[in-house]
């Protein structure tokens, strides 16, 4: 990789140009040196490979996230500009929307996934976590991705949504398409979309009111149509948002937490000594690994950002993961510390689009880590962890471990 140009000034030509491809397999294998180069090159950089601006420092990522009028989402939060290209699926009514449209749909999902609702589902989620640990203790040796990070959310989230038992095997593949599709037209994206038809058909069907069990998140969204908060045609698309964003993200979040705790036994011991740290241990894993690595915005006007001038209609790539380890913002950014004050990390985004499912994610993470730490003395990695490659999500494909009961 080469860095040309001088530090950014008002002259747009002076924004440093980098030839790094953040959607390349070698980048995914070890993104940290490249993240550092992106941060150090300047507050705003230009990536020639995909003709996009990039921000990798905490201050600029936070600023872009919190100025949705200038940096909009309605032209897509992936590389594709919906003003110039037809989206691969009907756009999301929340993720890929701007105020005032976003304000209305967001209010509906905020209500369905509110702290009050979390209190109601907490015991059920905690009981399922205990059952998962029962099964793992019987196995002793297992794959912490398939048997834990995937198995736990799969045992609880589709039921919470109110999905039918049949066809759930489409859920993770569908999410993987969605998150690959935010990337550039590389092989990952092309292949994902090419194979997406059966998953899309399943999801479209399950979002219909008749297919969602009463009392679940899905039925609650449809009930909001009765209240007049959204229309009956909008409801299925909002259910789709939970199917897209609610499962694979927590799989990678829980996977990240287990991978951290297995790699850093001192932190595991600290957690075992004080189970109230479980929630923050999960939060710190979301900062440290950033399961959602990147999102784009599109400029609605010419704008100056930290001395760089960006024209109208430009894509800006936000490196959430790099911001979460920016030494300008974090002490010892590369260490996993379960007692860290994590408030302010951008692993769930920030501003009006900040993850509407963050309370569900934290609940799953907290109860799962609590159950593990209470009943397991030791987690040992027994084989080479294998990475899963996705244009947006970071996580493992397999993590062989052996556990010792407490």
């Amino acid at each position, binding site marked *: 990789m080469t860095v040309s140009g001088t530090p950014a000034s008002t002259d747009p030509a002076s924004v440093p140009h980098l030839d790094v491809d953040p959607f390349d397999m070698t980048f995914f294998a070890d993104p940290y040196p490249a993240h550092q180069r992106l941060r150090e090159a300047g507050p705003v950089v230009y990536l020639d490979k995909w003709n996009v601006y990039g921000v990798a420092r905490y201050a600029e990522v936070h600023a872009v996230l919190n100025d949705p009028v200038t940096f909009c989402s309605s032209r897509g939060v992936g590389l594709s500009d919906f003003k110039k290209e037809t989206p691969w699926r009907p756009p999301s009514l929340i993720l890929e929307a701007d105020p005032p449209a976003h304000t209305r749909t967001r209010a509906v999902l*905020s209500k369905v996934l509110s*702290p009050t609702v979390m209190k109601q589902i907490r015991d059920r989620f905690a009981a399922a976590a205990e059952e998962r640990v029962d099964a793992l203790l019987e196995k002793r040796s297992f794959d912490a991705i398939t048997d834990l990070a995937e198995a736990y959310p799969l045992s609880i989230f589709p039921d919470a949504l109110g999905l039918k038992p049949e066809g759930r095997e489409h859920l993770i593949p569908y999410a993987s398409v969605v998150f690959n599709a935010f990337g550039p037209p590389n092989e990952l994206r092309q292949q994902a979309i090419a194979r997406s038809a059966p998953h899309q058909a399943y999801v479209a069907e399950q979002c219909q009111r008749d297919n969602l069990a009463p009392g679940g998140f899905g039925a609650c969204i449809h009930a909001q149509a009765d209240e007049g908060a959204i229309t009956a045609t909008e409801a299925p698309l909002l259910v789709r948002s939970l199917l897209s964003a609610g499962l694979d993200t927590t799989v990678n979040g829980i996977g990240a937490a287990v991978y951290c705790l297995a790699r850093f036994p001192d932190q595991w011991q600290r957690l075992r000594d004080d189970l109230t740290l479980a929630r923050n241990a999960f939060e710190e894993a979301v900062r440290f690994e950033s399961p959602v690595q990147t999102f784009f915005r599109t400029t609605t006007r010419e704008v100056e950002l930290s001395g760089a001038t960006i024209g109208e209609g430009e894509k800006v790539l936000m490196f959430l993961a790099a911001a979460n380890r920016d030494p300008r913002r974090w002490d010892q950014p590369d260490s996993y510390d379960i007692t860290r004050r994590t408030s302010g990390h951008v692993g769930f985004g*920030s501003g009006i689009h900040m993850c509407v499912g963050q309370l569900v994610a934290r609940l799953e993470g907290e109860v799962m880590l609590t159950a593990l730490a209470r009943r397991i003395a030791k987690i040992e990695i027994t084989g080479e962890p294998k990475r899963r490659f996705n244009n947006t999500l970071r996580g493992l494909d397999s993590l062989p471990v052996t556990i010792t009961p407490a």
Partner: protein
Amino acid sequence: MPAITFIHPDGKSERVETSGGESVMQAATRHGLDGILAECGGNAMCATCHVYVDESWLARLAAMAGDEDALLDGTAAERRPNSRLSCQIDITPELDGLVVRLPERQV
């Protein structure tokens, strides 16, 4: 600069000097105060920055928005008439001397 007093559940009080243009939550977390989690970083989404505002100050705060009101129904500790989310209280010079009490728990 306005100062705020936080009173912990055990009665211990902590005075925090604030800087301009921040919320009560930001002043607390910048100071490293225990008892305010602020998991959502001040985006009015988590209700883990809950405080009980001293009665004598309550009327002097700007009224709360609908989303704050709804979130307060989900706080971990009991909601009281003087419950507020500290990330939604912007510190102004008039709030110099504000007293808030911290709840038993935030999650």
